[in-house]
């Protein structure tokens, strides 16, 4: 085992360089922590970080060949992928997607109100990435996680830390946060992915709870109130809007592309019949971990954006609220669709923000506003959607639109 591991490292000298650089960076980081937060924090953080990185990189090393092979293969596929993309854009679904993207792209030309753009569109787009990352794991690989907030939150914390304390620019901070989320996903994934169904769900939930309790401790890990004063992506909300927009498109495209690739076929086979996949010679645990890693990466990206959007992060980010948000959004949009997550996220945010305005209606009879509590209305709608549109609204909506389109073209 040890020798095989060393061999792998020899094969990947690039990887060794990465690890060395990484550890150097970490050393400076630990020293900074010492300066800012004192010795208790130092000791605990050191233990945590080193365990994390040691195990994380050990396993990354094992999976490195798979990753590298996948990357190499996909490089070769770029020209044909572009050809297929153009062809796809010509189809109904592709055209519709392009149309929706265009609509979202021109929103800032219609309104420059920071509330509409920021609290509605940008937050909805961030949640789109987050919900899609969960959908990737649950919809494609069948691994239901109730602890997605662990990645979301950890990346949020790390991004905030890098920007605030290390004074890194936002982009490397964001990716560093996502990388840490990946490492966390390995630590969580390796013991829990042996589990099936509810055990996995509850196991991930326990991990998120542990992170919550740890980060809520008063003296370690930035204290219970967390970090605040994280600068936003840009002072100009329109620039922020377009940065997030680009990230949404890239993230969703990557997830969708992986889903449609051969790797995605393997993931889906694990979802449909894990024993059968194993009988077909698939190392299911390794692929599950890979799916977990990809999912955690995008959840981490979303977490970093979320922290920058809110300018603050506290232990509450590991709470069950954030773990269940993607479930709700995906339930609305439709599972195993990726873009359904976007529909769900926009529906979720817009509904809640529209219901917020209900309290301002002064013509309502006294006391009626109590019944129009946004959470109550939302829960009723959620029950109805799940009950009567089990596959989410996206698929049936697209079918209707397709029919309409066909009639329109006289087909």
């Amino acid at each position, binding site marked *: 085992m040890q020798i095989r591991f060393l061999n792998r490292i020899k094969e990947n000298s690039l990887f060794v360089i990465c690890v060395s650089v990484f550890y150097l960076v970490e050393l400076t980081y630990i020293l900074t922590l010492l300066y800012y937060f004192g010795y208790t924090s130092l000791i605990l953080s050191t233990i945590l970080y080193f365990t994390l990185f040691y195990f994380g990189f050990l396993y990354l090393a094992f999976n490195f060949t798979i990753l590298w092979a996948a990357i190499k293969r996909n490089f070769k596929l770029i020209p044909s992928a572009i050809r297929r993309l153009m062809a796809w854009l010509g189809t109904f679904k592709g055209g519709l997607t392009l149309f929706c993207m265009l609509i979202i792209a021109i929103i800032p030309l219609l309104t420059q109100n920071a509330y*509409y753009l*920021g609290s509605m569109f940008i937050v909805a787009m961030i949640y789109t990435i987050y919900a899609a990352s969960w959908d990737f794991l649950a919809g494609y690989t069948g691994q239901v996680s109730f602890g997605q907030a662990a990645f979301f939150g950890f990346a949020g914390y790390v991004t905030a830390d890098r920007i605030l304390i290390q004074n890194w620019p936002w982009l490397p901070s964001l990716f560093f946060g996502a990388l840490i989320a990946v490492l966390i996903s390995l630590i969580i994934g390796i013991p829990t992915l042996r589990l099936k169904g509810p055990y996995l769900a509850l196991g991930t939930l326990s991990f998120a709870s542990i992170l919550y*309790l740890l980060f809520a401790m*008063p003296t370690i890990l930035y204290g219970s109130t967390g970090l605040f004063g994280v600068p936003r992506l840009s002072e100009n909300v329109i620039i922020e809007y377009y940065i997030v927009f680009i990230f949404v498109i890239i993230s969703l495209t990557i997830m969708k592309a992986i889903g449609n690739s051969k790797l995605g076929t393997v993931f889906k086979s694990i979802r449909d019949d894990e024993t059968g996949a194993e009988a077909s010679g698939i190392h299911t645990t390794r692929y599950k971990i890979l799916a977990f890693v990809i999912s955690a990466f995008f959840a981490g990206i979303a977490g970093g954006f979320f922290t920058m959007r809110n300018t603050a*992060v*506290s232990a509450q980010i590991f709470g069950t609220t954030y773990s269940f948000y993607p479930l709700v959004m995906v339930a609305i949009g439709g599972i195993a669709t990726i873009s359904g997550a976007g529909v769900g996220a926009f529906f979720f945010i817009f509904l809640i923000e529209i219901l917020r305005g209900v309290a301002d209606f*002064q013509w309502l009879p006294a006391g009626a506003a109590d019944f129009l509590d946004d959470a109550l209305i939302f829960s009723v709608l959620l029950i109805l959607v799940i009950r009567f549109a089990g596959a989410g609204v996206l698929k049936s909506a697209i079918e209707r639109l397709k029919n309409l389109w066909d009639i329109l073209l006289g087909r």
Partner: protein
Amino acid sequence: MKKSMQRILAIVLVAVIGVGIGAGAYFFLISEAAEYKWDNTTDDIMDTVPGIDEEVPQNRIIKFGVLDDMGYITGKGAENGARLAAYEINTRGGVNIGNETYYVGIETEDTEEANPALDLSRGVAAAERMIYYKKAQFILGGFRTEALQAYREIVMDAKKIFFITGSATAKFCQDVYNDYNKYKYTFRIQPLNEVFLAGEVIRMLAATIVDQKENHDKNITKIAIMREDLAWTARMSGSINGLMPFFSAFIYGDNRLQVVEEIAYPQTAGPVNFYGYWADIKASGADVTIPIISGPTGLYYSDVYGDTNQPSLSLGINVMGQQNIFWEQTGGNCEYEIAMTSFIRHAKTPFTIPFWDHYVGNFSTAPIYTATGAYDAVQAVVTSIIDGQSLATDDVLAELEKSEWQGIDPNWTTPTGIPRMPKYGMGSPTATISFWTDGTYHRDVDSATAGIQHTRHDVVEGSEPLGHAVFVQWVYDSANPTLGKWECVPLGPIPGISDDYMLGTYFGLGSWEPPMYTDQPWGQVITANITWPVR
């Protein structure tokens, strides 16, 4: 035939949908109708512009936005306090700037911060909606640090004056010193910050011990502390522990006064654990138990306190115990508990009792600390607007800060100590607004941050009687057995031991000015009224 009919129908449908979406987008995003209107219909106090029934032009409204959890007692309090102030100002003729009359308008936005499963983005959305959609000019509210620290940034970025009415976190005002250009718009008006709260508890404890020894021949020797495991409670406990030998030497001449039991529990602790905590405290034989609790576990603390018939007196900070419904909530188990509060119906200033009665008359509930804070905040801002004759944020800020250099809140006091009745009927029920900026008058009790000398824009402890917290004791009320009542245990100078000596010596902060209003009823020691548990 049928097919072409279908096709025509489909085209019509698509056209209708397209036009509908376009019109909707235009109407809600672009047109003038998309601008939020501060509508005014009645002279009801709950209306947008309270106390005025005619339509006020949008640009004649001084727009105050309240950000808080509107489904929670703090949010209701902040809204009501702000409304009461607006109502009073508007009914007395509004505010004259130049030759124009302006009226005060109040709008609220729900940050949902009381939800234990906090979602930061809700608070941020509320703040952005308030600032960019409702176009509020001045912001007040907020009580939960985790949520507040997120949406305060939004308010600061928008360069709006923000009066914090509920969070005790000292960091908010230290930021004003650390990064003045960014955070200069932050003010705290309620409550005392956590650093001063510690000082208040220590003073109350010392006063009680001295008083019991001198007047009742009762020797208090054993102290227990029960606190949430948080950074600020740890610092506070450190102060109390550090002061014990000093108190003991001063009061008894030896070191018999000791902290015998200290329990730091996680915020997620369940109620069953409290039977354990209280059993330990009972076993330690403590005379006084000091709670330092801000969260919902305060309910467990008090419930089990009564259930286990504790012989010790509970004296300290239990935020749940500040509300007048606490007796009902605990089923009377909070009897004998002494809780710090910011404000009660007591003549702290000449405006306190009128404010209290006016508030109760309008909202049929007693004001809590966010209500007085919001009331004072609106009054303070409006006073500054009048003094500066400008609505511009920077002018108002300059006026608010100018008051600092006069030593004490200029709204109603003069160096002679006689209250000044302002022209527009402004009054400050708690009068704890004194926005110090310079380091000479500032006492930082927090040893961990003792290096930071300047706390700007904060409420300052210490000027008698205004800068002191109030302690109230829950006692059984035979006239109304289901409600119980608060009995005031106000705090004054400790006989034979000056504040200066007590805190100044320990923290090495040098001397400070003597109390100014010792002739007021407030300044007397009333600790003798404390009812001890009969068990």
